[in-house]
């Protein structure tokens, strides 16, 4: 048996093959890297609208009050005050304060929660939830029953509203249930591209008809992981396994605004300790002087040649027309505007914030 045989496939696998996608291994899943080409798919997302298969991601349902169920202690952000049909981004931490995963909590009802986690971490996350939720409350890992499609880009509202007119009411980080092709599906106004966009959570059976229906519109193109990685890097979003993992804390990753210190949560002690002592490393953006890109795992050097950190993700940015990246550097070397060297110290860039691209339509 080859490694290929052990990869999981989403319900849309045959659709990708039919569209001549180049398939790659990603976090234990066989996923489309690209269809037409990474840059073309990137551009279509920024200028029009694309669809992504994100069915590899995990979904959990929890029934119970946020405090009584134990859910509140598992996630880092405040959820007790979430309005119904709203979404909130945050993390789950281990006792040492490391990030076990980043996730989005949906409040379906006063005592019903829908949680979206990363694909590669789903089994680990499910074990963590089961281990820390109180027995009397219901936890279900429904990942295998759910198909998920992201519709992203400035034309996403118009395209999706042609099938579900009611989605126009959704503001940023809210969701609801809608009728789509005769089935009730969850649609949230969320995404991973920095553009106006939606995510559709349907049954595994309906995900293929929805995918086909969306692509019937000649203005809609499929986009793969390659375009998604550039889009999320430009927008300043972290990728679990790159900018986040169990050895990285929210303070180091610059995600402390998604940590609520007014409540109790797993990892709070470690978080407070690090906050008091100060984090030793911090995540910064890097913008290259030219079209050459920083690449994952390259070392970063300061102006005088001393090693100061490493690159966690890098790519060519079509928006900046330069190479961009993010990486961890020692705290005393993290000043924005400071020169940084990468690629065996031969290439120059400047340290910046993590966000390279902002579009106001995302939240309007």
């Amino acid at each position, binding site marked *: 048996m080859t490694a290929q045989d052990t990869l999981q496939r989403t319900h849309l696998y045959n659709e990708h093959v039919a569209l001549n996608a180049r398939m790659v291994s990603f976090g234990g899943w066989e996923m489309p890297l690209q269809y037409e*080409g*990474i840059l073309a798919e990137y551009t279509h997302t920024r200028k029009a609208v694309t669809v992504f298969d994100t069915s590899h991601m995990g979904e959990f349902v929890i029934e119970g009050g946020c405090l009584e169920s134990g859910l509140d202690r598992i996630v880092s952000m405040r959820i007790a005050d979430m309005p119904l049909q709203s979404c909130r981004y945050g993390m789950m931490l281990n006792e040492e304060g490391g990030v076990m995963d980043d996730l989005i909590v949906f409040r379906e009802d006063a005592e019903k929660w829908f949680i979206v986690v990363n694909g590669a971490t789903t089994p680990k996350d499910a074990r963590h939830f089961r281990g820390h939720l109180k027995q009397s409350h219901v936890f279900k890992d429904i990942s295998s029953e759910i198909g998920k499609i992201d519709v992203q880009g400035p034309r996403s509202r118009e395209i999706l509203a042609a099938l579900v007119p009611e989605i126009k009411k959704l503001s940023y980080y809210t969701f609801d249930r809608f009728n789509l092709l005769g089935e009730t599906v969850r649609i949230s106004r969320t995404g991973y591209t920095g553009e106006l966009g939606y995510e559709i959570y349907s049954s595994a059976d309906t995900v293929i008809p929805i995918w086909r229906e969306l692509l019937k519109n000649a203005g809609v193109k499929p986009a793969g992981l390659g375009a998604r990685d550039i889009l999320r890097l430009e927008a300043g979003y972290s990728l679990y396994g790159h900018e986040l993992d169990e050895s990285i804390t929210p303070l180091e990753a610059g995600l402390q605004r998604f940590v609520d210190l007014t409540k109790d949560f797993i990892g709070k002690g470690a978080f407070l300790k690090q906050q008091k002592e100060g984090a030793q490393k911090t995540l910064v953006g890097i913008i290259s002087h030219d079209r*050459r890109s920083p690449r994952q795992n390259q070392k970063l050097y300061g102006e005088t040649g001393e090693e100061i950190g490493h690159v966690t993700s890098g790519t*060519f940015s079509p928006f900046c027309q330069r190479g961009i990246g993010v990486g961890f550097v020692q705290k005393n070397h993290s000043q924005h505007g400071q020169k940084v060297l990468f690629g065996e110290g031969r290439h120059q860039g400047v340290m910046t914030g993590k966000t390279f691209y902002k579009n106001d339509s995302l939240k309007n």
Partner: protein
Amino acid sequence: MEVVDYYLYTKEHEWVSIENNVATVGVTDYAQEALGDITFVELPAVDAEVEQFEEFATLESVKAASDIFSPISGKVIEVNTLLESEPGILNKSPYERGWIAKIEISDSDEASNLMTAEEYRKFLESAG
């Protein structure tokens, strides 16, 4: 996958077209397809001496950076500076507008170390 009949090829997927002791060098259609969208080309310096099968240029695509090896020894006499501003030409036209450098050949016998188009086609098939 396009292979031009009268060019010569390397196992690293570079092509060379020889005319009057000048070799025009680039990467093949297979190479550009495998690399994906090319976003940066580091050209050799004009007048640089290059050795056969030694690194002489770098390509970066949206996926990775790759070294390019010179198919033949000699002196670089011209480089395709268009690639610096429009590296995507390498994807669109790998055998014509996407040429990388022209090299004045120092040892024409080295051409016998390269594959013919027919041999390169078989090489691509066997590589699967």
